[in-house]
């Protein structure tokens, strides 16, 4: 047998470490450099800004430490934005998941016309949030929309003016957002359902489990990864929510439907509070990373094993 202790491995110098060997890295380099600068460099830039006294333009001559963050969390508009984000994201995630799962399970019952229904549930995902916003803005408008329709059908006392009411306006945004995304969640769940091993189900049927029990005890628990994916995608969309709010209410009435993304935009470019705007962006990033980073880590880490 080989005696491995006597010969220490010596490195073989490759005489042909030529262009061909470097080429892959050269090809990747521009993209990586761009990502480094435009994503990570810019994050650092914004982080610096958030500690500066920048107003209209970036200004690195005055440093305010955590001043911008203190002002941010004492600002009623930011508090409103956070509250709205909480309401919006909880309802958005829960309702989308519920509708998505229910539709997926129903569609999975050998439904005639599934091929016809599925695209209908999913098409809103192809639309711009601005288009969705326009459609729902006018449909929920008391003057011409749903309220008007009900009243013209003879239900004189019908009233639905949430979009004009500071307390309720955020819920109309939830309605539109759920409309746009729930079909997508349905598609995720449906793919998950179809991926369940048929033999497990057959085994359960032989064990005498009812359809309901099979779903409740076997299939839905098996879909945990899908729930997780749906949660991550929806939470990430919720924190970024901007377009839909702009199109439906532009933050109104008053500041009732401000979200963190809207706050960032309005303070940075509308109110010349660049320092606070940067601080709000950093907070948004931290929120997203708390959700995304562990998820990506587990997904990528799990793959490597």
């Amino acid at each position, binding site marked *: 047998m080989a005696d491995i202790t006597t010969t220490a491995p010596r490195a073989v110098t490759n005489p042909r470490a030529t262009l*061909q060997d470097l080429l*892959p*890295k050269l*090809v*990747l380099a521009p993209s990586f450099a*761009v*990502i480094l600068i*435009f*994503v990570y*460099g*810019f*994050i650092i*830039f*914004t982080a610096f800004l958030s500690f500066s006294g920048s107003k209209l333009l970036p200004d690195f001559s005055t440093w305010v430490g955590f001043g911008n963050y203190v002002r941010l969390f004492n600002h009623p508009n930011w508090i409103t934005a956070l509250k709205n984000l909480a309401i919006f994201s909880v309802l958005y995630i829960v309702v989308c998941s519920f509708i998505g799962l*229910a*539709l997926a399970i*129903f569609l*999975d*019952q*050998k*439904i005639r016309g599934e091929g016809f229904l599925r*695209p209908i*549930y999913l*098409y*809103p995902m*192809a*639309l*711009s*949030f*601005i*288009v969705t916003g*326009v*459609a729902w*803005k*006018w*449909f929920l408008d008391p003057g*011409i*929309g749903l309220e*008007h*329709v009900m009243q013209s059908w003879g239900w004189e006392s019908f009233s639905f003016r949430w979009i004009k009411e500071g307390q309720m306006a955020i819920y109309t945004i939830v309605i539109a957002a759920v*409309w746009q995304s729930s079909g997508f969640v349905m*598609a995720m769940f449906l793919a998950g359902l*179809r*991926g369940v091993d048929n033999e497990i*189900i*057959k085994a359960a*049927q032989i064990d005498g489990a009812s359809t309901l029990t099979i779903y409740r005890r076997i299939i839905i628990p098996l879909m945990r990864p899908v729930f997780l994916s*749906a949660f991550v*995608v929806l939470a990430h969309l919720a924190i970024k929510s*901007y377009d839909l709010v702009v*199109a439906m209410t532009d933050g109104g009435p008053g500041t009732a439907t401000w979200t963190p*993304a809207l706050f960032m*935009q309005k303070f940075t470019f509308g109110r010349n509070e660049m320092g606070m*705007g940067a601080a709000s*962006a*950093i907070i948004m*990033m931290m929120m997203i990373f708390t959700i995304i980073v562990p*998820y*990506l880590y587990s997904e*990528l880490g799990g793959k490597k094993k």
Partner: protein
Amino acid sequence: MSAASQDVATRNSIFARAIIYVVLILFAIYYLLPLYVMVVNSLKPLDEIRQGNMLALPQQWTIAPWLSAWSTAQIGVQPVGLKPYFINSMLMVVPAVAISTMLGALNGYVLTKWRFKGDSIVFGMMLLACFIPFQIVLIPSARILGLTGLAGTITGLVLIHAIYGLGFTTLFFRNYYEAFPTELIRAAQIDGASFFQIFRRILLPSSGPIIVVTVIWQFTNIWNDFLFGSSFSGFNSIPLTVALNNLVNSSTGVKEYNVHFAGAILAALPTLIVYIVSGRYFVRGLMAGAVKG
């Protein structure tokens, strides 16, 4: 999709099945309602919307709102309709999609078939870039565009969209090429094919589906973008989504709902057509974007 778990649906009672169908159809109505409202009311005169019923079919059919939305509606200070902005969007989307898809394909190729030390860190950083809230790059991006003289130009928007789309395009191609047999690359190496020859002759011919998925994904995202468009566009480079929002939310003048609806459909039409023509690939893109790694 295979019908793997459909065996669960053994023998539901007729009553249960009726309920399932009713629920499914009600939801179909819910999803179709806004589209119906938009279409129907874009074909009505304005008076009919204000006096009548949003859900009713037009009594007097007209395409005037469409013509107005396309070419004469007041947007900002100009009565030019959405047409120039539609063109802006096209000019922005096509190169941005082409650049980001091409680079994504090359990146995916390198990251799977020419692995090197630290490649997973590079990929991880590109992947994380997909999820940053773009608010965090708005201020420095505006600075860079200003410094390079690209502020307010379509070129600037193309650049921004291409860069921030790179993460996703790389992800798509990487996951696709990961499953592409490495032995084929090795066989081609033994046959003497170079780095680019392998890409062009071996990988690209097999990349049809993922190219379609990526192009659709990028097209949909960039066409529908509002944040970058509203932040970085200038007088001559405003994309359609921003113009539509200006049209609908302008505080002056009479609210021409029918024109708004026609405009909204115009803005939605390209992505809707893509969805109808290639829905399968659209869904695959969504899934690939959702289930990472």
